[in-house]
């Protein structure tokens, strides 16, 4: 069961993955928005805005143009078979990113923080962002999410205990942080969003766990029953806040809540919230030697 990487083929497959991710919203997200639309009052701004978002998504899919002009941070989770060169995979993805920018699937979005210069092709230090894992399959799996700046700016991290929120170092404390974070975000992250949550870890790994949750399907159930209950509870309560689509008011403030955990130090307890906008662009592909499949 060997696997030899054809770099050129792989690169082209990644360009296609970027195109699909940028222009074609996943089915589960569309379905959640359709349901949300049903649940809003006739004639309300919430209903018309959700309708407009959906129409936008279908138009983008049809015309193969970006759903949103902010094609965001490109976050990759890559799973490779043993022995495949990380450097080759990385450089193929960087090339694919350049190509996809040229084709306007991506907007030039990588800015040097010191000089203020935009590289023009979405590549730079830690851009795109790559995270590697290994598996036993003779294939490379690539998962991609495009996360825009508006929703990244309202993402947040709390340190427990938090006296303002009367939040202790337990799941009740976590609940309080998330209610506070989504209320603080209002419509600014292009609500209705998906809350990816990381409990524990350090400041970096906690946020990575939070972001990894954004790759889960909205319809899945957390394998940990306690977390599954918390996800449901939060989904219900957050939608009572009345913030609504774009913060215009309404019954739909979040489309999903997904929670993961990482072991923490005895001395620290972080709650990390990665807010993803309704333009919840994530796709994946499995690249085999002579076959590519996309989801």
């Amino acid at each position, binding site marked *: 069961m060997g696997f030899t990487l054809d770099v050129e083929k792989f690169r082209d497959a990644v360009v296609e993955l970027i195109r699909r991710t940028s222009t074609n919203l996943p089915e589960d997200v569309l379905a959640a928005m359709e349901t949300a639309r049903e649940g809003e009052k006739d004639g309300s*701004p919430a209903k*018309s*805005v959700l309708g*407009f*978002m959906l*129409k*936008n*998504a279908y*138009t*983008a899919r049809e*015309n193969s*143009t*970006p*759903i*949103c*002009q*902010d094609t965001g941070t490109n976050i990759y989770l890559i799973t490779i078979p043993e022995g495949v060169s990380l450097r080759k995979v990385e450089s193929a993805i960087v090339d694919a990113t350049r190509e996809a920018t040229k084709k*306007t699937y991506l*907007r*030039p979005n990588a800015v040097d923080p010191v000089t203020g210069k*935009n590289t023009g092709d979405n590549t730079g230090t830690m851009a795109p962002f790559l995270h590697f894992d290994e598996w036993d399959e003779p294939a490379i799996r690539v998962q991609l999410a495009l996360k*825009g*700046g*508006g929703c990244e*700016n309202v993402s947040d991290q709390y340190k427990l205990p938090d006296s*303002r*929120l*009367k*939040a202790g170092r337990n799941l009740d404390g976590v*609940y*309080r942080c998330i*209610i*506070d974070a989504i*209320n603080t975000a*209002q*419509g*600014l992250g*292009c609500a209705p969003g998906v809350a990816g949550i990381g409990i524990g870890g350090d400041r970096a790994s906690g946020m990575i766990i939070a972001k990894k949750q954004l790759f889960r399907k909205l319809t899945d159930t957390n394998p940990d029953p306690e977390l599954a209950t918390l996800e449901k509870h939060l989904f219900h*309560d957050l939608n*009572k*806040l*009345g*913030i*609504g689509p*774009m*913060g*215009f*008011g309404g019954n739909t403030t979040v489309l999903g809540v997904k929670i993961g955990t990482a072991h923490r130090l005895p001395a620290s307890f972080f709650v990390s919230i990665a807010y993803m*906008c*309704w*333009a919840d662009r994530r796709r994946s592909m499995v690249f085999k030697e002579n076959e590519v499949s996309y989801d």
Partner: protein
Amino acid sequence: MIKLQLPVGETQIRRLQVGDEVLLNGIMVTGRDAAHSWMIEEKPDEVRELLKNTMIYHCGPIVRKSGGTWSFVAAGPTTSIREEPYQGDIIGEYQVRGVIGKGGMGPKTLAALKKYGAVYLHAVGGAAALLAQAVVKVHDVIKLEEFGVPEAMWVIEVKDFPAIVTMDAHGNSLHKNIREQSTKIASRLIGIE
């Protein structure tokens, strides 16, 4: 739905209320951070005629050029609050009748809307593909070389461009109302009233 033809007069703008859904038609201009600081620091005369009685759209588009003409591929709104330090003064200085963006703006802009007779219009964030279709023609572009594509001032003609009034010329802000309400509910949920 209220149809607004640009350029638009002050009286018509003052009639608008928070919550009104509007469709914009006519010529407006995009502008982000670079354009706003330029307008305040250098007070360029070349944009005066252009901005008078029209709207500034906070948008950094994806554009395409084919056969010498530009077109908008994706053109959703960007976060407006970054322009809060400049916006009120620009509205006064250039007699702008409104700004379009997302997320709303602060007290300084709200006061300027009332003083000069202008509104804040909220476009649907992320709806870039559909909003780009409402941009039927690119008439001109200002400062393209210097500011780059997203920051340049694109002079665009729109047809039935949809937006909702979230800050009006009477001192009302939907953003403020919603925030107050949701904060009450949040406090109740976590029992810290």
